[in-house]
């Protein structure tokens, strides 16, 4: 796609959208949002970037290959479930940490870690498909 407007705006647009997607991811436990939605938003941000700048640019921006990102996400999600085994609970039972300085902080948990894993899998998998297709000539 050779739109000059898109090409100029896309870096900012992408930055903002990714930021927004992370916000949606983190607020998901209490308000509409979460790993799936955040991941889809993040993926669409990079999809826009890919359409504007090409697959190579996205690959540079991501540092890791998208499929590796997705794999890491799955590992994080799985690992977050293993933590509960240390405390004698079943696999994937949520574990919370209430730090002394702010016991009301409810983000430090394996559940949020799991949601981050979901986010990474969704972003990675969708980008892998889109970049793969963009690579095809």
């Amino acid at each position, binding site marked *: 796609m050779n739109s000059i407007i898109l090409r100029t705006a896309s870096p900012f647009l992408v930055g903002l959208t990714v930021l927004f997607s992370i916000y949606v991811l983190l607020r998901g436990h209490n308000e509409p949002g979460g790993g799936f939605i955040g991941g889809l938003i993040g993926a669409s941000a990079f999809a826009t970037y890919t359409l504007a700048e090409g697959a190579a640019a996205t690959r540079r921006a991501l540092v890791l290959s998208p499929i590796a990102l997705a794999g890491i996400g799955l590992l994080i999600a799985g690992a977050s479930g293993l933590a509960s085994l240390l405390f004698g609970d079943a696999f994937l039972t949520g574990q919370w940490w209430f730090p002394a300085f702010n016991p009301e902080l409810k983000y430090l948990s394996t559940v949020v870690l799991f949601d981050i894993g979901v986010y990474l899998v969704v972003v990675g998998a969708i980008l*892998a498909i889109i970049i793969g297709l963009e690579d095809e000539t």
Partner: protein
Amino acid sequence: MLAAVLTPFVLALAAPAVRRWAGPAAGWLLAAGPAALTLYFATLLGPVAAGEALSFSTPWVPGSGVMLSFYIDGLSLLFALLICGIGSFIVAYAAAYLHGHADLGRFLLFILLFMGSMLGLVLADNVITLFVFWELTSITSFLLIGFNHREARSRRAAVQALVVTGGGGLALLAGLLLMAQVGGSLELSVLLTQGELLRAHPAYAAMLTLVLLGAFTKSAQLPFHFWLPNAMEAPTPVSAYLHSATMVKAGVYLLARMNPGLGGTEAWQTTLVIFGGLTFLVGAVLALRNTDLKLMLAQTTVASLGLLVLLIGVGTELALQGAMAYLLAHALFKGALFMVAGSIDHGSGTRELTALGGLRRAMPLTFAAGALAAVSMAGLPPLFGFIAKEFVYKGTLDGPAALAVTACAVIGNALMFAVACLVGFKPFLGARTATPHAPHEGGPGLWLGPLVLATLGLLTGLLFNATERLLIAPAVAAVAGAPVPVDLYLWGGFKAPLWLSLATVALGALLLWRARPLQAALARRLGRLWGPDQGYDQFLDGLMGFARAVSARVQTGSLRRYLLLGFAVLALALVSPLLRHGLGAASFAMPMGDLYVWGVALLTVAGGLAIAFTQSRLVAILAMGVLGLAVAFVFLMFGAPDLVFTQLMVETLSVVILALIIARVPVSENDTRGWGRAVGDATLAIVIGASITLILLAVTGVPLDMSLSEYFAAKSYTEAYGRNIVNVILVDFRALDTFGEIAVVLIAAVAVLGLLGPRAEDKAAPESSS
């Protein structure tokens, strides 16, 4: 006792490593294991002869009453001694016979696995344990027959043996379970005391048929005898061990074991005597027809198994004595003769009887073993084979149809006499013939085994009192189900058995004298005859043809047809409950006031219809967008903000991917269906759609069980610290499901990457830029 059964398995796993380590000494090292087991079982001889029975039991599948239980009485001890004793010589023999073979380690592994399975089979008390070991022997036999797996003949023989004995094993399982059901126990030691109950039960015929199928296939009885000669494709140690001394006797063992439970009826007697007798004669005749040493021995094994089945069928005390004595004699002389045949093959390079002669100078020790074993097989005193034959005749004279059965035995034994002399003497006597190798004696591994076994045939004969007390009497007691007085002898005076023996020898000598023309005539006559071996091929061909015909019919390769069939079944499944149960409390209330909802509903359907009926690609993509948006609106109206978000993002990304793809597939997606087909498809589609609507209405007409949802609503914040219940369900309450789902997403991406990229089958696919 469990340790005794497990020892061969442990040794088996160690065998390849031992072979690599110890090199040529591996055979002797590994043979020490079964030799030690033989000694262990030998120490049990005294107690068992004194009437003790040893048992061991540990829960295996306690829920179904399956125990890993073992039991030693005279019968199992006799078998255990044969298995371990002959087994130790076989291991040493195999190491020498396959000396330098690349896969010797694998061979030793298999043969020790077999030894453990066979030991477990004869010691098993629980019927499930028995069945598992029974099938293990079939499987290890398959592996051993197919040892030279690069040869098509070996593979065929291995598969054939597995199909026949494995199939019989399944019948056996059914029979054993039936017996256990009727007898009320899975333990044989209990079941066999319930003989009256079993024999009087209406299902007795079924039990008998199934158990006999198992025994007959395993012990190569007519009409299943064909697999055993084919199994001679296996290396000779296997033939000597599995297919003469032990595995094929499993069927005989089973019959002997079942005798107190199932035996004694007319059906049992008639079936066993007829099948055993026929097998005996057919096997003996076929043995004389062949000129390959191994095949001759294999056919005499078929014959001997027939004789054993016949004797168990006759079932009188004397017949059972004959059976047990012959069992022991046969294991000793046949094991020895097979090993002798292998040594001849190994030393001279051929097993063809007509090409062999005058080997006595070159292979004196092998000759001694062969001659001794052959004399036992021929049934001449003072070897144990003679005693066995005396008791065989006493047994046949004692039973029903004594004249016919005895005549059958005499003719069969005369044929065996001729074959024994041919195999045991012909290769060694007479003038030296030219053989592929210069004949030479092998290492001690090759001659020690046959020599010891043949000598044991002599010793058991000379020391018949000890043999009787320690081996035969306890075994007969176990088979008969009660102690039986046994009185073995070498000299019984000029009575009927002796006259029969003399007649046998005379007839055998006559056959021997005319052996050459007889063999030629038999080969001519029987060469072209249809046999069960061809029947097996025809059966398999038929099965394959049937499978091809069915799959050609069911799997037409037309996706449309598969889908059509699937949807037709779906329509049937949807319509039939509606017809049977009606609509129940379904409500059709559709308040007209909520125009907003009506608008969105119409938009959704319009989008769908546009996708289906437009001829323009662009319109179709747009319509998909409309449909997706309209569904998002439905979610929005009914309180599902998370779904709205998700739906909108997926919508966007779908269009992106669709655009990327469609640009690369420049083919029209117009509907190519003719009018007739389109109308038919539409009718099916409408039936499905309408019944889904109606069923959904019926479902919403009944109250919904909200307990799960209420549980989540109540616990979401108090236990999982989240206010968005949907998200809490996803990442906490049902996190394992979500974990599986993201794994699916990842797999889909991996699969897509696999599909992308250049392929060999593409026309001039350019290298991608990355």
